[in-house]
């Protein structure tokens, strides 16, 4: 097992390295930060001076070399906009995103799993139908639109909830729902299908034949086995949530990395762009790794494999 994990980690590192190359190149294709930093009246001299100061005058490979050497030592460069280490800037915004993400994640789990299990249990009934319908519908609207509509209804018309910004618990509701909706839909559908597979199996029949109470059959016998694919999916989903935050945070003016990076792109703040992309990739990869380990946890077959 350890060996296996180690191998995966090495892979992950390589992947992240590639990502760094790609995003480094991409970022530089978006334009020249000086065109944002310098006042429009800036002279050629000022351009050159600034370029030199930021090391943008060197050829790209050299620039990457420098970036790489520093990155290895944990220095991802200094934000062109905030004059502080990019990593520091990003990590400063990360909590906001994570809080929102985790909340949305839990909310959607809390909704999706019971509904999914229920739908599978009562498969074919109209309740199942409605549940699926709603779920698919949830996946069918762009979630920035959901967000806009939610603001329109709850903030503008009903005046129940704040439209945006970070603050009291009530600030979390709309963004969390927006962010969670897409994911809840996915998880619900997955739970349902996974449960359907499991409920068909012999050991469920046997459990019932033992006279086990239905709820226990569902949750103890069936769900623990169905949880497997659900977990896999959830980890990936959680990372997708972080990516989704790019839009949601723009809609709700949420001070997280999503908004940070959108502004970083228009500000051509290369270090921040790079940091965020690499961070998200790292999270995605970590997510998958965790999943596999969780797999091992729920599925003894894997756990006991040498």
């Amino acid at each position, binding site marked *: 097992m350890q060996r296996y994990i180690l191998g995966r980690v090495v892979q992950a590192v390589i992947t992240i390295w590639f990502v760094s190359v790609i995003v480094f190149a991409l970022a530089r294709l978006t*334009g020249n930060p000086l065109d944002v*930093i310098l006042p429009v*009246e800036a002279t050629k*001299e000022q351009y050159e001076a600034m370029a030199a100061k930021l090391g943008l005058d060197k050829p790209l490979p050299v620039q990457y070399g420098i970036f790489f050497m520093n990155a290895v030592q944990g220095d991802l460069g200094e934000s062109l906009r905030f004059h502080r280490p990019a990593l520091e800037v990003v990590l400063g915004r990360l909590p906001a995103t994570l809080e929102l993400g985790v*909340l949305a994640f839990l909310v959607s789990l809390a909704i999706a799993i019971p509904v999914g299990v229920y739908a599978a249990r009562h498969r074919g009934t109209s309740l199942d139908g409605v549940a699926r319908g709603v779920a698919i519908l949830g996946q069918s609207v762009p979630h920035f639109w959901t967000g806009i509509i939610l603001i329109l209804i709850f903030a503008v018309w009903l005046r129940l909830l704040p439209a*945006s910004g970070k603050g009291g*618990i009530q600030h979390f509701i709309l963004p969390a729902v927006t962010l969670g909706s897409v994911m809840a839909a996915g998880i619900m559908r997955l739970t349902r299908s996974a449960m359907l597979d499991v409920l068909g199996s012999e050991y469920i029949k046997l459990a019932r034949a033992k006279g086990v109470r239905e709820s226990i059959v569902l949750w103890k016998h069936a769900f623990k086995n169905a949880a497997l694919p659900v977990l896999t999916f959830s980890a990936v989903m959680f990372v997708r949530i972080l990516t989704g935050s790019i839009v949601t945070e723009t809609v709700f003016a949420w001070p997280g990395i999503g908004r*940070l990076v959108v502004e970083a792109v228009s500000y051509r703040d290369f270090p921040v762009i790079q940091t965020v992309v690499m961070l998200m990739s790292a999270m995605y990869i970590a997510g998958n790794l965790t999943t596999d380990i969780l797999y091992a946890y729920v599925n003894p077959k894997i756990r006991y494999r040498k």
Partner: protein
Amino acid sequence: MISKKCVALTLVLSFLVVWQSHAQTKPFEQELVALTASLHGENALPHMGSYIDLNFWSSTYDYLLYATPTEGFTPGLAERWRVTDNQTRYTFYLRKGVQFHEGWGEVTAEDVKFTLDLIMRKDSISSQARFLREIVDRVVVDNPYQVTVILKRPDWQFLDIVNNDSPPVPIVCKKYVEKVGDKEANLKPIGSGPYRVAKRMPGEFIRFEAVPNHWRRTPDFKWATIRAVPEASTRIAMLRAGQADLIPVPTDKVPEVEKAGYRTFSNSGARLYWVILGSLPLPTRDVFDPKVPWWADYRNTNEWERAKKVRKAMTLAINRKEILDTILLGRGSLYGVSHFWPGNTPGNDPKWETNPYDPKEAKRLLAEAGYPNGFELTMILLKHDGRPEAPHLGEAVAMYWEKIGLRVKRLPMDFATLRPQMYARKLKECWVFGQQWEKEPIVAMSIDSMSTSQYFTGAEHPGLDKMITDTLAEMDSKKRHEMTRQIGQFFYENYLTIPLVEKGSVWATSSRVADWMMIPGMNSDVQLLEYITYKR
């Protein structure tokens, strides 16, 4: 098992969240919350930031002089100032006893010298750097309260530079900057203004605390926070939710806000919008393209006239009144020549009328110019900070042009992408440009309308270059203004640019705000917070 873990996690988290939020929402007494679309670079040192950045610190610093709506200045840190007749020596007599924040001592001549030197420093990105380096010979500290600037040559612009009008020249604290270094000082500026910086989260907010009995003005609000909220609808929602006291409102949302019963302040002259026709290069440049319908070699009279007809047609095709009434909902005004705002612009000529709306004439002119069935061109819908209307205006203009038979492509673009191409005069596209009103249009023109200027929003023409240079050299304001008028006349007659509308920035305030001093051409962003009064 899993479910147990989940529950546990949920509990912990929700606790965290609640706790977190409580930590956050503890309100200050009398805190003013002002919103802005973006805090931009937030650079606080004059040699490190563009004027957009520096505007956000306008209340943290004091300035030698303060701009007034009309000509002339009111005293600031400089109680009075003397200019020698040949306009080469400027002496400023400083106010005594003005203290920098957090015990960094009194503002002295040393600080003024230091500030000017900073701006002229080699690594300075300030937009005045070039100009100051050109004209300033040296800055002399006569005594702690008296500083003299000696110029290489006579100049009338100097006072226009060293005031709070953008780009502003804030007086920074020598001791502080030298002690902590540029970087630190840029992150946490120390000034002598009415609001000291209390706390900031870059990109998110800056929180100021009022300085008790300040010589210039003691703010009503003990605390003031500038918070960045990119989405306009979000800003409005926050205003309505009582989360904000002062928000910039894009014109098309003004009625919504007013309907909701909020007071709006409009500040005229903030933006002059006009259409820039491609980059109009000198025929001698290799980027010069004779096929561009609206531009030609000025030495070839027929061609020049033909091109002028096209420009005129494109000008007459636009119904400015309708644009003003619909897109700007009547907030703003019409004007005749780019750079010249009828309000009070030296050199403005009342005889310059707004171009009429006359599509028939436009079509006729096109035909005459040899384009009976129009031609193809591209309108750049420019995404440019502080000019939310620009893309809308662009679309509107495009629609009018289509009505006279031009085939208009649209191309959304952000300014950072446009800029280098504009510098290179490469663009064959048109775009709507919004410029901040300048006290002396000639100053702006010298920067953006000459074939030598890097930043370029006009048309390259040797005659124009000459006129501008001469005008700049003219010390006598009367004559200078007359010469300025002639430049405007040249633009007007040749339809070099296509003026659209003037529009002020609109601000909505919560019920806690009583009033806010508006200075024409300023308040383009959250400035002068100390002049916002609290309604008791």
